[in-house]
């Protein structure tokens, strides 16, 4: 397994290079650049040319890319062109904020999905199944930003229970205050993550229920709860465990819209702002981080698969 992991890790490097080249080219194709987004009619042509020169935007694309790559290889993510602030420092401040929001929401959604998904499968075609399935479909169809606005109206404006903006009141770094700010974005994200997971659990449980081993268990006189607890749930949870690996990048970019709506100072709102301004070092840094997590997440998923299912072997041709 170590050899497998090492080989996969080695593959990450060329893939990351490809990703960054593709993103870099896409940014170059855009009809304007970061200097365009900060200039004003009052700036002389000379001043604008000076900024463009200072940022190296007049250099050939390859030169710009290699200069960026050289920096990154030395562990320097560089500076935002728009704010001239250190990207590493900004990320170090914002990443924990995003994790703080996404992680509890994802875990909640996952637990809910497993519970309700199995319940729905056990009550297949009965009322509770139909209700859960309908709720899942509704959840999938509901845009998170719209749900967020509903929550803001209900809990923020109408009931006035929770603050709407940000993660802290000014000057208050207390836990209570943080939790009050966390409630609404947490609910939005949970609702955003839950339906897909629940449908996944439900459908795979239903599939399992049709398997021969379930029939055999029934023939042996096992009760439905026993069948679920001892057999079906294990087989359903195997693939669910691997979902966790795939979800890894969400810790960085899982809440772009939610963060923006609630002014949550995380990576998502930071990324969106940079994308609007064509602030390429920021865009690349966030995507680099996110792409790395995608690949590590996939690797993790593969390894978890082996861990939880002894029938799977890594790197070998099936006999």
């Amino acid at each position, binding site marked *: 397994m170590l050899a497998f992991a090492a080989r996969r890790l080695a593959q990450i490097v060329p893939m990351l290079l490809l990703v960054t080249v593709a993103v870099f080219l896409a940014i170059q194709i855009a009809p304007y650049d970061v200097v365009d987004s900060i200039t004003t009619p009052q700036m002389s042509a000379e*001043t604008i040319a000076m900024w463009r020169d200072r940022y190296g935007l007049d250099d050939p694309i390859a030169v710009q890319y290699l200069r960026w790559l050289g920096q990154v290889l030395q562990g320097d993510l560089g500076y935002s062109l728009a704010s001239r602030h250190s990207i590493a420092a900004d990320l170090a401040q914002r990443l924990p904020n995003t994790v703080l929001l996404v992680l509890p929401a994802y875990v909640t959604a996952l637990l809910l999905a497993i519970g309700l998904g199995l319940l729905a499968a056990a009550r297949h075609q009965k009322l509770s199944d139909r209700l859960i399935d309908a709720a899942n479909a509704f959840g999938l169809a509901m845009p998170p930003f719209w749900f967020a606005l509903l929550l803001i109206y209900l809990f923020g404006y109408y009931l006035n229970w929770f603050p709407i903006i*940000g993660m802290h009141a000014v000057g208050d770094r207390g836990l209570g205050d943080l939790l009050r700010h966390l409630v609404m974005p947490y609910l939005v994200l949970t609702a955003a993550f839950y339906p897909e997971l629940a449908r996944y659990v439900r459908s795979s449980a239903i599939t399992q229920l049709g398997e021969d081993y379930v029939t055999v268990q029934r023939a042996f006189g096992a009760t439905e709860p026993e069948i679920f607890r001892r057999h079906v749930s294990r087989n359903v949870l195997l693939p669910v465990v691997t979902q966790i690996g795939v979800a890894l990048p969400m810790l960085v970019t899982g809440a772009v819209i939610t963060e923006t709506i609630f002014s949550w100072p995380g990576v998502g709102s930071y990324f969106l702002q940079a994308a609007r301004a064509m602030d390429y070092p920021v865009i690349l840094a966030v995507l680099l981080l996110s792409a790395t997590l995608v690949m590590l997440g996939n690797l993790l998923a593969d390894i978890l698969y082996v861990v939880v299912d002894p029938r799977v072997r890594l790197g070998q041709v099936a006999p």
Partner: protein
Amino acid sequence: MTTKFRRTVTAAGALLAVPLLLAACSQNTTTPTETSALPAPTTSAPASAETGGATFTYAISGDPSSLNPINTGDRWGLTVTNLVYSPLARVETDGTMVNELAESITPSDDGLSVVVKLKPGILWSDGEPLTADDVVFTYTNKAVKANGNADLLWIGDAPITATAVDDLTVRFDLPSPSAAALSNIAVETYIIPQHIYGSVTDFSGAELDPLAVGTGPYKLVEYQRGEYLKFEANENYYGDPPGIPNIVLRIVSNADTAKAALQTGEVDAYFVTPNQIADLAAAPVDVYPYAEGRVAYLGVVEPKVPDVRVRQALFFSLNRTDIDLAAFLDPQYFQEAYSILPPSNPYATTDLEKYDQDVDKAKALLAEAGAEGVKLVLGYAGNDTLQQAEAALIQSQAAAAGITIELSGVDGTALYDEIEKGADSQFDLFLGGYIMGLDPDAYSLLFKTGASANYFSYSNPATDTLFEQGAIELDNAQRKAIYADLQAQIADDAVFYALADNLKILGINQRIGGVDQARLIPIYTFENFAKLTIK
């Protein structure tokens, strides 16, 4: 190479051109520090005993692009600068000059120098006295082109220089006579302390260290990037003590969220749009529409529509009032504009061709030009709902005169990139807006041949000559006459159809008083936040 500049459609210029006023002053005590503490979920925080009541919270749309007064240029950067620092003087929106740090400002008769005497006894927020050296230091560094914001301090290819005559007197020398420079020299440059920043060699960065020491009414005490900036009253301020001890600029990028926060009282003030106002009726919020001196317009790329009669025909086919109402909803939220200068500008004239709707005349002009059935492409910012409304109405009105307009909604920044291609642009017409300030010379950037923001690719030697005459004419009445001719000339050339000065609308909680005294001004929101009070 033609440089490209771009500007987002409206916000644009916020910059400098606006005269402001200031408030400033000094004081000692803490210098602001940038806290970068993570919101670690530790229990119980040292809540800085914030009694929400003593704080004015203002929702702003994003982080300031720079907190460095030498080079900041965006709306929120300038707002912060105006809270913490002071200029020598401000120009009011009616063109009168109000002294801030300056006690007197005396231009010489030959227009080549200006002597500024400072008020005695002004202190920085750290308790040190303000001197002429600080002023010289600030102007000298701002005039360094590498610092990125030197344009206003250069005339032609030479900078304006500053010299300390004595402790409280500064003389500015102009390389050549300039009416614009004479009226601008003392405004819009916020003075920074030499004793704090004297050792800084590069002022092109977005932040100074320490973050801010100024003579303005407030001190910056905390900056949480992406969250808020917190200010406390500066006890050394030279003006009346601030009426509200704390000010918070809270960063809220989503308009719906900001509106809801204004409704609930989580923020006290926010710039609202006309379509949000109905929702505020039930909340304890007053709305204050005011002019920023913006001009929203329909522009023509001249080389794409070379026949002036076709351009005039298009303008005669339009109904300005209807277009403005479609975009801005109610006459109380805009003033109709007819000229390149906003209606509130002291130099604005109404003695020009206004192109009141006349469809028959439009058809006659088209026939005369042999351009019946002409087809034009109108580019606009596709995500801007105001421009969507304007574009749709322009299309239908022009159709009545036999002009076919194809609409093309694109990214706002990309739009400017395209129209700067001039004759090669895919657009014949475009929608835009600018805020260029009070001095009419600033508008030469838009309409002089080859100027940096001449999106129209407009070129008329007569217009250029008038701009040159106006820039150096020191007699105000003469100057007005020159700019009146100039506005009439550009109107006749029909490359620019002014729509309106659409007003900025501040929604503000009724618990806040002193809004009239604090004065709403372009870009900086309030001339002096210190005049606000809590009722």
